[in-house]
């Protein structure tokens, strides 16, 4: 059996691999009361095989019923966040070889309700994101026939572009220690987005957003543990965004 999906015009070349790992997949189905247990599979890999490839290999050939969310396989859609060998990561952006381990354990992300196996429920994160008004707030945000663009220099773009790279994968929320116990905390994902829009020179919604995050389970429940930034696969650095955001509330910044 081959792991690769390469094929070419003339004929399909199968590259067989001598190397393999044990993939341990966490299985559970809370809706039917099936408790968490691990299933192990021996999966061959190449130097380019990602953890997602390995899981899909299992799904293809060993057990069709593995519940896993995926789509883009190139770290842009944010579907495949999970705990891999103990750390929150994107399965499609983690190569087996990087893990330096003969055993790869995959579990659903922490701090999200599990739907089944590796798939978790994002409802709360999405609705929190919505609550923070993640859009340009100003009266003339709709164009008319005479509209010209709002000018913005490359330097002004630089101020928010990194926060704009968030793929809503939820890894940061899964890593944050506050999220580990506080189910009402806004969380790093949404806070970073609040900052993304406030830092945008076109936006005028700063005060509205600051009001929303200034509540007992708001921005103050971040203690600058920085774990969110460590796991973020896109370099968003939510920890920085949150501290800068708090700067406004503390009067360090205008």
């Amino acid at each position, binding site marked *: 059996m081959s792991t690769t999906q390469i094929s070419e015009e003339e004929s399909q070349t199968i590259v067989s691999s001598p190397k393999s790992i044990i993939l341990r997949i966490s299985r559970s189905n809370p809706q039917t009361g099936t408790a968490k247990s691990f299933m192990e599979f021996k999966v061959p890999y190449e130097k380019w095989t990602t953890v997602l490839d390995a899981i899909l290999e299992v799904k293809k050939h060993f057990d069709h019923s593995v519940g896993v969310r995926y789509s883009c396989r190139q770290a842009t859609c944010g579907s495949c966040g999970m705990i891999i060998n103990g750390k929150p990561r994107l399965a499609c952006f983690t190569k087996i070889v990087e893990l330096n381990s003969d055993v790869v354990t995959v579990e659903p992300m922490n*701090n999200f309700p599990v739907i089944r196996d590796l798939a978790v429920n994002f409802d709360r994160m999405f609705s929190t994101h919505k609550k923070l008004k993640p859009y340009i707030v100003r009266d003339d945000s709709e164009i008319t026939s005479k509209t010209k663009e709002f000018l913005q220099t490359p330097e002004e773009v630089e101020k928010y572009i990194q926060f704009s790279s968030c793929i809503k994968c939820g890894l940061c929320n899964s890593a944050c*220690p506050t*999220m580990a116990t506080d189910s009402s905390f806004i969380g790093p994902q949404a806070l970073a987005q609040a900052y993304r829009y406030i830092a945008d020179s076109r936006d005028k919604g700063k005060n509205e957003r600051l009001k929303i995050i200034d509540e007992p389970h708001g921005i103050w429940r971040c*203690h600058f543990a920085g*774990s969110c930034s460590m796991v973020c696969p896109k*370099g*968003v650095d939510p920890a920085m965004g949150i501290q*800068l955001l708090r700067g406004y509330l503390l009067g360090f910044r205008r």
Partner: protein
Amino acid sequence: MEKQENKEGIKGWLNPGRYGIERFAYWLMRLTGIGLLVYFIAHIYETSTILNGKAAWEKMLDLTQTTEGHIILAIVIGMCVFHTANGIRLMLGHGGIGVGKPGRPDYPYTPRSINMKNKLCIYASIGLAALAMMYGLGVMFGE
């Protein structure tokens, strides 16, 4: 509820192996905060015995001025120094100072808020705490 949300729970507060020194500092900050609060309450109770006259005060001293007492006091000194020093770092950080400037991230991404400045401050806080503890022990046992 907690189970359903797959929360890590209190053990999720620690995880320094997974997330590094910043996470350790976070946890130490909590621990020292609580520790100091406990000491503080005890200390107020301790000092209140002064109102009951010299005998009571000295009885209390007998209780606290022991080897264990001194060790506890040294730990409190350490906690206080760490909590204070790290607290000052955090206050600056929370205000957006020393967390880096936003800008285009380049792969492989290294978050600017997790920087040497902060790490050094954490190490310094721990170092200072250790020094203070040793100094305290020196003073207390040095006679």
